[in-house]
């Protein structure tokens, strides 16, 4: 019941999120041949002061157009759409999960129902998680179709692995936001706190010497490009001690946020 209600509350926002992702995906894929030709002639990016921007440029101007296209997908679908739009959606979906109940004075009603608090958390989180990650898989799967229109091919398994990693990152953001939603009680405070944290992370990412400390280092071009190139098998993603094992760290961080949220919900008083 709680899951159905949560899903009904999020479904239109999830649809809008899917449409935005798709609207961002289609033009950059269909215009790839022109973009590739323009990039070959451009030297603008070579003069950028950030080394990661230079590496992105080198990747998307690779002499092998197939490799360059995969790198383009890594930049546009993952580094841009998932990290920005996906993160915004996860924060949006997670912010109100509990804080809205408190603001609308329905939290006591919810807690007094004959249902375990763990079940309340689960029934609120899984529809939000589904609304966050399903559009990602749908849009990235549609990239397979759009690619055929421009004579390119994307590797299905690699695309799925990269999408799964992006999904895990968004699940981490969602559970972090849900936890904040339990602790901070007011939706605006939750959005401000998580938003400030993420902006700080972006700021750190854009600062050359400390970039490695940013959360977005786990989901940047340099992580996605090898996966889409087929150089990162799935078990390396799940090995926390491997240099490509960021997925395992994100899974652990997601689990930690879930445990914290569950602990706080168990202790929560009306």
């Amino acid at each position, binding site marked *: 019941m709680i899951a159905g*209600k949560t899903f009904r509350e999020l479904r239109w926002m999830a649809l809008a999120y899917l449409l935005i992702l798709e609207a961002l995906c289609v033009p950059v894929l269909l215009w790839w041949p022109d973009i590739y030709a323009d990039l070959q002639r451009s030297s603008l990016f070579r003069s950028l002061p950030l080394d990661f921007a230079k590496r992105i440029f080198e990747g998307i101007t690779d002499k092998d157009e197939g490799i360059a296209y995969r790198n383009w997908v890594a930049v546009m679908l993952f580094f841009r759409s998932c990290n920005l739009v996906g993160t915004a959606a996860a924060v949006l979906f997670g912010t109100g999960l509990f804080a809205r109940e408190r603001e*609308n*004075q329905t939290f*006591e*009603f919810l807690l*007094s129902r*004959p249902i*375990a608090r763990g079940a309340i958390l689960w029934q609120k989180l899984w529809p939000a998680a589904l609304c966050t990650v399903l559009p990602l898989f749908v849009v990235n799967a549609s990239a397979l179709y759009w690619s055929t229109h421009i004579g390119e091919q994307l590797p299905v398994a690699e695309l799925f692995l990269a999408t799964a990693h992006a999904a895990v990152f968004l699940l981490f953001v969602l559970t972090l936001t849900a936890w904040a939603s339990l602790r901070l009680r007011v939706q605006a405070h939750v959005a401000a706190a998580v938003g400030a944290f993420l902006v700080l992370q972006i700021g750190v990412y854009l600062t050359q010497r400390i970039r490695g400390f940013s959360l977005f280092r786990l989901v940047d071009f340099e992580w996605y490009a090898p996966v889409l190139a087929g150089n990162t098998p799935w078990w390396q993603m799940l090995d926390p001690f491997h240099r490509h094992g960021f997925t395992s760290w994100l899974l652990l961080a997601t689990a930690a946020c879930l445990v914290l949220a569950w602990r706080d919900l168990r202790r929560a*008083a*009306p």
Partner: protein
Amino acid sequence: MNPAVAVRGLDVRFGVKQVLRSVDLTIARGELLGLCGPNGAGKSTLLRTLLGLVARQGGEVQVGDRDPARDPLGVRRTTSYLPGENGVYLQLTGSAYLDFALGFFPRHDRERRERLLAHFALPLGQKVRSYSAGMKQKLALLAALVPDVDLYVLDEPDRALDASVRFVLRDELLAMQRAGKTILLSSHHLGEVEALADRLVFLLDGVFVADERLAAARAQLRRRPRVRLAAGQPLPAGARELHREADGTLVVATDQDPMQWLRACPDGAVDSVEIGIPRLEDLYQLLLQGAGEVQP
């Protein structure tokens, strides 16, 4: 048979603030108990403790055969609770809210549902957002009264309801009691709770007021009639003004029995008088002033 609710020595603190102090309460099965007290007395905290929503620092609580701290889910399966904040979801339609709220309980009293729906005449197809405060309360009441459980814990069920709906509620609660249900309700309408409840308990600053002290306060209140004097008339001798209300009504203290004082009043001096109808706010005031306390 175990009582429906048994509380012994209950202590609840929020930080350094002691909200309930060594509270003892027993509610027999099938009893309708009224709980009164001023704001901040600890009424809602007591009700929440019975549901296992608030942790206690001391004492014992049994709801049916269960301790709400150890088995809160078991308690909530057999208890229907109306929170003080009615807890209706504004974004749902009335019927969607009812389906949601009632879906947590396996057994419903369908006759009661139909009866209350007919009395309340709620536009269930509309979003709750468009409801008035009274309509929201009616919806919350439906969600609280329709589940077929052993115990009903109702925090100010008559809030925002007009007199006619309060009568419907009273009749329904009496019918539920006749059917063997146990009901604990808190309310600010003293007269109606008194008429309805088998027993009335007063919570003041986290402790129950002893019956003797309450009786003394009520006796004292009986000597404080509310009087409206005729235009230009002074207060007749034998009474002194305690305070004057905004509408000009005087609350007075009489030296003798108020009926005797009234009989002795000159003709035409008094327009109207109210004797022996205790108002909750007056009772609180007296109790807070220490009325009925045993003097050392």
